[in-house]
Each structure stands twice: as C-alpha cells, then as structure tokens.
C-alpha cells in the first residue's frame, strides 16, 4: 500500500512522520497501562492504580505543545503524562514495583511519579493539590524572567475544590504563565459531573476569573494538539494563564478497586467507539497517510519497549531498609 507524506484534515496539514509519532505515543501509553493492569492482577504492583485508557489523546496532544524547559504538574492518573514527558517505561514500572531504580526511588509508587530531568513535578494524589504548586512554579519563572510554561493537569473533580478557585484567581491576578488542563472524563471518582457541579460548563468557571479558556474534543489527538499549541503560545508570549478543558472519557474504572457500579456498561461501550487510538488510526488509514504495516511496526516496537521495561523492573533492586528515612530531610543543609 502506498502512503502519502502528508494529509489535510479539517484545514490542518498532518505530516506522515508526525501522525505516526502521535499514534505511537498513544499506543505506548495504552500498552503500558495494559501491562500495569496485568502486573497488578499478578500482585507485582500494589497500592492504588488509576489507569488512563481512553484519555491518551489528552496527554499526547498537550505535551506536544511543551518544550523541554517547561514544567508539568500531574495527578494520580499520571503514568501516561510521565511516559510522554520522557520518563522511561522501565523507570515507571520499577517505581510501581517499589524498586530503588524507580523514578521516585520506590517511595512514590503509581500515584507519585517524579522526574527532575524532565521537570515532571508529580504525581499528586490529593485532588486539586497540584494546582497551587503549578501557580508557584509559574511565579518563580516570572520572577526569574524565564519565559517558560507550567502545565497543570487535573480532573473535573478538582474543579469543586477550593484550590482550583484560589489557583485560578492567583494566576489571573498575578498574570502567571500556567496552562491549566482539565481532563474532564465526566466522573469524579464515581460521581457524575451532574451530581457534583452546579454549573457543568467548566470553562465558565475559568471565564469568571478572567482566564481565557477553550474546550476541545479530548478524544481527538489532533484537536487537542492544535488547541494546546495555541493555548501554550498564548501563555508563553503573553505571560498569562490559559484554561483548556479536554472532554474525554476513561474506559476503565476509577481504580483497580472500583467495581464501577455508578455507570452503565452500555455507556462505556458507546464511548469506546470514540477510542482516540482507533479513530486516529482509522482516519489516517482512510486518508492514505499510514498503512497496516505502519501500525504493525509500532505495535511490535512498543511491545518490545514494554517487555524490556518489565524485565528492567524485575531486575531492579530493593532499597535497603536502613535507608528508609533517607530523604525525609535533605542530606546537606545549603540548598
């Protein structure tokens, strides 16, 4: 099958290499998460495990808009963000195993992935807890005259927290370069949006703080990427916050403990028809941009990556118990 170098979609030109890159990124997240679920069932990894299946287009599309200098603050459902930000699948899995070669040295686990090399500031398991931190990172950038963006991911459940409102107010008041990304998957744990928000159009809340906002189809990676690039550009050049709502859906339960009694299976099946990976691959194939061989190649490469990551995590070592209190405080006084 012959493939084209570029296709035109909704007025935007998509380069074949870039299309493959986006597809590969989403498949990397999906396959890593499937492996996590498997390892969880095999009791290799424990604790709370929140999977991201269905939401891949959000992490991939948004992170395309950031540079290496920008900062990322994420939530407890952050494996995909960490992976796409550049943390290796091996370091992520080793962390979930609790090994000292994990990206947080086995002290964080699934919900607390951190990486200073990629300015990945977690991994925060308190809903809304990362929002003020993102505001502070942006404040530090502004005070040091660094033209960087701090990107903060959170779910629509966080919008009910006081910290959401305090953070948007501060960011707008002080004109701070924060890209607020709301991953609206319609359920705050098991409570549907309509049962927890008096005003369900979340962008209106941002508008009430005079923060520019947009909503985008979070199941469409190209739409997310386009919106994110525009939003990040606004933040970067104008030095002020932007609020982007990505309307998405998670195909799995809130966590591995969740019996998912709050939503009908038919609803999940309906949303699965909009799977960001399947729809994007189908679109690209229809346009003649990629072929089945490309997808097979990606799947083979990703399978190898994940297998190597599991082997790495298995081979990693346990932190000596004598070092348990290491990093409660810093080892040297002068920062």
């Amino acid at each position, binding site marked *: 099958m012959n493939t084209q170098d570029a296709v035109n979609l909704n007025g935007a030109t998509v380069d074949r290499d870039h299309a493959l890159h986006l597809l590969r990124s989403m498949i990397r997240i999906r396959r890593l998460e499937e492996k996590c679920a498997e390892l969880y069932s095999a009791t290799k990894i424990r604790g709370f495990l929140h999977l991201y299946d269905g939401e891949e287009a959000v992490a991939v599309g948004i992170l395309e808009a950031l540079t290496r200098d920008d*900062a990322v603050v994420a939530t407890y459902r952050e494996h995909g963000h960490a992976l796409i930000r550049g943390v290796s699948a091996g370091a992520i899995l080793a962390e979930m195993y609790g090994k000292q070669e*994990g*990206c*947080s*040295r*086995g*002290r*964080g686990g699934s919900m*607390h992935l*951190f*990486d*200073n090399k990629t300015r990945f*500031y*977690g*991994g*925060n398991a*308190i809903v809304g*807890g990362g*929002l*003020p*931190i*993102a*505001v*502070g*990172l*942006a*404040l*530090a*950038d502004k*005070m*040091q005259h660094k033209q960087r963006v*701090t990107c903060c991911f959170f779910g629509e459940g966080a919008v009910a927290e*006081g*910290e959401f409102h*305090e*953070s948007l*107010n*501060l960011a707008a*008041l*002080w004109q701070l370069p924060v890209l607020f990304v709301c991953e609206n998957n319609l359920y705050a744990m098991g409570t549907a949006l309509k049962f927890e928000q008096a005003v369900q159009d979340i962008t209106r809340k941002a508008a009430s703080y005079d923060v520019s906002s947009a909503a985008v189809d979070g199941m469409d990676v190209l739409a997310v990427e386009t919106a994110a690039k525009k939003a990040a550009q606004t933040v970067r050049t104008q030095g002020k916050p932007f609020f982007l709502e990505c309307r998405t859906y998670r195909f799995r339960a809130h966590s591995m403990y969740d019996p998912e009694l709050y939503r009908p299976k038919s609803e999940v099946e309906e949303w699965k028809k909009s799977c960001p990976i399947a729809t994007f691959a189908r679109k690209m194939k229809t346009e003649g941009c990629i072929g089945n061989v490309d997808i097979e190649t990606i799947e083979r490469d990703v399978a190898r990556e994940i297998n190597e990551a599991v082997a790495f995590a298995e081979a990693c070592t346990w932190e000596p118990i004598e070092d348990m*209190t*290491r*990093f*409660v*405080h*810093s*080892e*040297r*006084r*002068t*920062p």
Partner: protein
Amino acid sequence: MSSDETNLQKITYREAVREGIREALQKDERVFLMGEDVGRYGGCFAVTKGLLEAFGPERIRDTPLSESGFVGAGIGAALGGMRPIVEIMTVNFSLLAADQIINNAAVYLYMSGGQFNVPIVIRMATGGGRQLAAQHSRSLEGWYAHIPGIKVISPATIEDARGMLWTALQDPDPVLIFENSSLYNMEGTLAADAGPVDIDKARVRRPGKDITLITYSASLHKSLAAAEILAKQGVEAEVIDLRSLRPLDEKTFLDSVVKTHRAIIVDEGWRSGGISAEISARIMEGVFYDLDAPVERLCSVESPVPYARHLEEAMLPQVDQIVNLIQKMVGAHG
C-alpha cells in the same frame, strides 16, 4: 552575636523579626515575602511595615485571603528556584493550608526519592493571651511538630527573632517559624551586627541544679520569672528553651534532667497528645532512673480558648502556677 556591649541597641521582638526579613531580602535576590496584608497594610501585627516601600510589590506580595492557594504557590516557587517567606496571619488560618503544608511541603522530597527540595519558610503567629477567643488563639505548633519532613522552630528571644530566619532560609527543607503574638511588643537589646543563629539546638537560658523547666516561646519568660521567685526561696531551677520542636534537641534536656533529677514542662498547647507528652515520654525512655519525682506538665486547660479575660488567664499556664507546682515537686520528694 557580638559581646561588645557598646554595640547593643534597644529593639522590640517585632522589629527584630522585621530586621531578619530585611536582611534576607537584601542578601539574596531569590528571597521574597508573601502573605495577607504584608505589603500595603504593613502586616497585621505590623511586623512587615515599611518593607513594601523598601523592596516593592514584586518582593513584598500582598495575597488574597486564600491560605491554601498562596502557601501552595510558595511551595511551587520554592520548587522553581526561589526562596519564599510565606506569612500566615496566625496558626489558626494555617489549618486552611494544612493540606499544602502536610501533604505537599513535608513529603515532596521524600515522595520524589530525593529529587525535589522545598526550601520554603512559613512564618505565623501563634498563642493566646490577647482575648481573641477560640479561633484566633490556638497554639498548634506541637501538631506540626508531629509531621516528619518539616522543621518547626519558635523564637522566644530577641536574638532568635532576629537570627532564626536566615538560617531557616538556608535550609533546603520546609521550615515553619511560630512567633507568639504576645512577644511582639517585648523589648530587649541586640547587637547592631547580630546575625543568624542556629535552629537546631535547645538553650539553657538559666542554669540551676534543683529542677529542670522545659519550655519554649512565650512560656519561656513565665518560666524565667518563676525561676527568679524560686531562687529567692532557695530553689535553683534550670530553664531550657527548646527553640526547635522538630527536630527536638533531646540531649540538652536529658542532660539537664540527669543533673537536676526533676522535670516540668510548661507549654501553652494542650496536654493530650501535645508536645509536652512527647517530651515527658522521652524523659521516661531516656533517663527514668535519674528521676526523683514524676515528670509534671503545666499546659493550657483543655477547652477552646475563652474570650473573657479572667477565664483566658486561668486557662493559660501562669507564673504562680509554675512556682506552686515546683514547690510541690521539690518539697514532696526533697
């Protein structure tokens, strides 16, 4: 601190705190101050008066009344390379920011496996005695001392009020400074060139041989006053100022108890589950066989702090209570 007495200047505790902040702002451009009313108003306890004019609104930042938001922003700014001093009006309001302090500041370094330091200093007023009633008079520093990952210090003297801040700012980890609001008007002398002090060690503020008084902050001055009264009665009390509640410098008070064989803890906090319980337990664990009498505690009455002056005074530890308790302890087992 210089021992040259000609160099001594009269100063209040409030001014000493301010001079500490001023020096930090001058010495390190990464340092900035933010909090409610710290700028245009001059600080609700007038601590930060004049700083806005001297350093401008970028570095003296008035915040909205949103403790969780601006404390969290301070944590983020510390992660981003700044050295924020965040002022919370009183410890009572810090409860609105407790999530950021406890769930973020205290654990970021640990959860990240040593990758991310949070070099933030959070200052707040604490304590009762000003008829401000239950929601403005708490002494919750002992609560914060429960949390690994943060340091909790409380300057009782002019020298510490001036000198602890810079040392705290040099610490790569979060430090909470509790300033007892009843001390702000206290006057004393301080060398013009007084500089930073350590924040790790307790201090023997008055040597003695008959009993050890372990205390900190405003209760230090009540304890010293009681010790003076007791000295006239022939009882020499050794008074220890803890200065730091986390980590606790237990060596200093255990050594003292070994010498005096008796100990009393004076604390404006509540008794149940308070820092006094921790100190008492450490004495039992460490030097039980050196004790001639059970460890005693003089804490606040276990009620919310009342407004009425006579009730509030009766609630807080007072000098005559310290004197009476020590007389009983020394007399009963002399």
